[in-house]
């Protein structure tokens, strides 16, 4: 799990980028032409994939940025234990636990034992993005 590298000038809405160590999805990008401030700049508005926090950042357009490698995987809910859920990856059969807060807010009510979910993993963090229903 890690990152690849790209140029800040290539970021656009929907791209992924690491800001302050957090994998984020880009919400909007605005570019400033070269001027009295120096070379072209890129202003990026993004939201943390895992923490939901909005982040604004200015990069020189030619700056190297980290792009998170996101692995989109399927798992099955083995058990719901209060605020914690236990999952099993459907490919590797690895089992792991996640707090309920790591399930997308709108999907949280659909979590039940036996349900199949799509979860994303990036920079060592996991989040359930979608609950597909009982498998």
């Amino acid at each position, binding site marked *: 799990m890690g990152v690849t590298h790209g140029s800040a000038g290539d970021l656009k809405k929907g791209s992924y980028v690491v800001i302050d160590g957090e994998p984020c999805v880009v919400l909007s990008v605005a570019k400033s032409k*070269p*001027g*009295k*401030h*120096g*070379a072209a*700049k890129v202003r990026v508005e993004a939201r943390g994939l895992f923490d939901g926090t909005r982040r604004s950042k*200015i990069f*020189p357009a030619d700056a190297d940025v980290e792009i998170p490698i996101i692995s989109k995987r399927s798992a099955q809910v083995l058990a719901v234990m209060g605020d914690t859920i236990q999952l099993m990856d459907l490919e590797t059969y690895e089992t792991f636990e996640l707090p309920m807060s790591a399930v997308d807010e709108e999907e949280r009510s659909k979590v039940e034992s036996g349900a199949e979910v799509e979860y994303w993993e990036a920079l060592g963090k996991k989040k359930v993005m979608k609950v597909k229903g009982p498998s």
Partner: protein
Amino acid sequence: MEYVRDLVWRPGMTVKELVEGFAATGFQSTELYKAAQIVVRMKREGAKVILTFTSNMGTSGLRGLFAQLIGVGLVDVVITTVGAIEEDVMKALGERFYIHRFQADDVELHERGMNRVGNLLISNDSYARFEAFATRLLEEIYREKKRLTVSELLREIGLRLEDENSFLYQAARRDVPVFCPAITDGSFGFHLFMARERHPDFDVDVVGDFGRMILYLSQEDRKGVIALGGGVSKHHAILMTLLSGGADYAVYITTSTQFSGSMSGATTSEAKSWGKIKDDSDSVTVIGDATILFPLVAAYALEVLREEGLIEA
């Protein structure tokens, strides 16, 4: 009482002779003569001299004169705004500012990436190269020191330049502090911000520098201010003298008038009401463009002080 005498040219007339002739010419030329005399007295009577100027003057060729005044030991403190810092560095890096005209097609200039400063032009490319230099420099300084005041930062920059006409270079070598309270008010502000974005613990301290500034001359008996233009630089110069009863000498050269109540237009007399220039101070305000007036004042003062052996020239 003094009376008006006619000014006539003589073959081989020197600047000193011309300025002496201004004494009895009247209007601003008489005020300019007084300014030149006050600068001489500041030094002769052992005052510490604060020189302030605005960014545009760093863009102009006055920058070389400022460096020279520091180099010969006429100036003890410099206060300016960040444009002058940027342009001092840019010139030291070999950038050229072009001579154009006041009546210009500014929309076309913008399309060509040229920025007009009066009748001068600075290209965006110069700013881009300055950014590359500033970014490298700030990385280098950050590795040595994560927190420093603005004047410490400017000294670090001056030590890394190789240009005798650079005021940062001369100031760093003579241990003359350069204060720039509005350090973010220009392209360098962006570069400092980007450095902070890369290193959240990188801190350039303005308030700490304010402390250094107000204490720097507080134990000195006599203080003189030469303020070219107005704004932040001029105000900080007289602020520097406030705790010790105000400046003993003051020369203002400005195109601003006092009628809007602005700091830039405030006269030396108005500053007396603030306690920032002493009631019995030796002071004058000359109205006009510093690129013409100040070289005359400086050339006169340098000539007289050199004859008296009071400067290293």
